[in-house]
């Protein structure tokens, strides 16, 4: 019976606030317990996961539903994160893709993933790119 209830959400095809909420909740549950990402996030958000999840729901709502709910400067925020590393972006994207696969059909998962990959690339460049060093860099 439980599986029927769970499956009623799986394979979701349409972007909605409800879908975004579920994605953010499930994804950050993984992030929080991830040995690499968990401590970096915990430190960066001062342990306030409720506030961070609310911010992330607003962010993805703005990106996927053009709701304009999030207004911020993620480039500046990421430049100040202690312990941020290039390989953490790959880990973040892998967990995000895994969560999308669990919740959404292929097309919707791809819609989220392609946005996430582009945004991650921009943030990586903003945090790590230096004009005097080759890019992509493995040294950062």
């Amino acid at each position, binding site marked *: 019976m439980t599986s029927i209830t769970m499956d009623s959400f799986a394979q979701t095809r349409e972007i909605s606030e409800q879908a975004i909420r579920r994605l953010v909740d499930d994804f950050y549950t993984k992030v929080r317990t991830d040995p690499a990402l968990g401590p970096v996030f915990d430190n960066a958000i001062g342990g306030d996961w409720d506030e961070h999840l609310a911010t992330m729901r607003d*962010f993805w709502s*703005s*990106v996927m539903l*053009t709701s*304009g709910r*999030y*207004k*911020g*400067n*993620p*480039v500046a925020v990421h430049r100040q994160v202690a312990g941020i590393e290039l390989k953490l972006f790959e880990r973040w994207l892998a967990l995000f893709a895994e969560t999308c696969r669990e919740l959404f059909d292929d097309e919707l998962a791809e819609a989220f993933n392609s*946005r996430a990959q*582009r*945004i991650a*690339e*921009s*943030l990586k*460049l*903003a945090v790590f790119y230096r004009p005097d060093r080759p890019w992509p860099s493995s040294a950062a």
Partner: protein
Amino acid sequence: MTYVVTDNCIKCKYMDCVEVCPVDCFYEGDNMLVIHPDECIDCGVCEPECPAEAIKPDTQGGLEKWLKLNAEYASKWPNISVKRDPPADAKEFDGVPDKFEKYFSPESGEGDG
């Protein structure tokens, strides 16, 4: 990676983009907007919102001139995140060729003020 505002924004300046941008990276000139390339996160939300189809991803070829112009004027013009009414004659200028040569103004716009 960034999006850039191109020729057809000039004298149209619809400003639909500034409301949806999650990172407030639009800057306002007298008769066009530009995107700050270091603040844009490449989310792509603004592109389909532009009635003049003036916003393009920098991965598209031939946009070097516009990328340079966006970067230069984003540091000179004021930030804009709240839409106002577009120019009354915006529609008449939509699609007019070579607007940069004919009409570009380096003067600042109002911004959010």
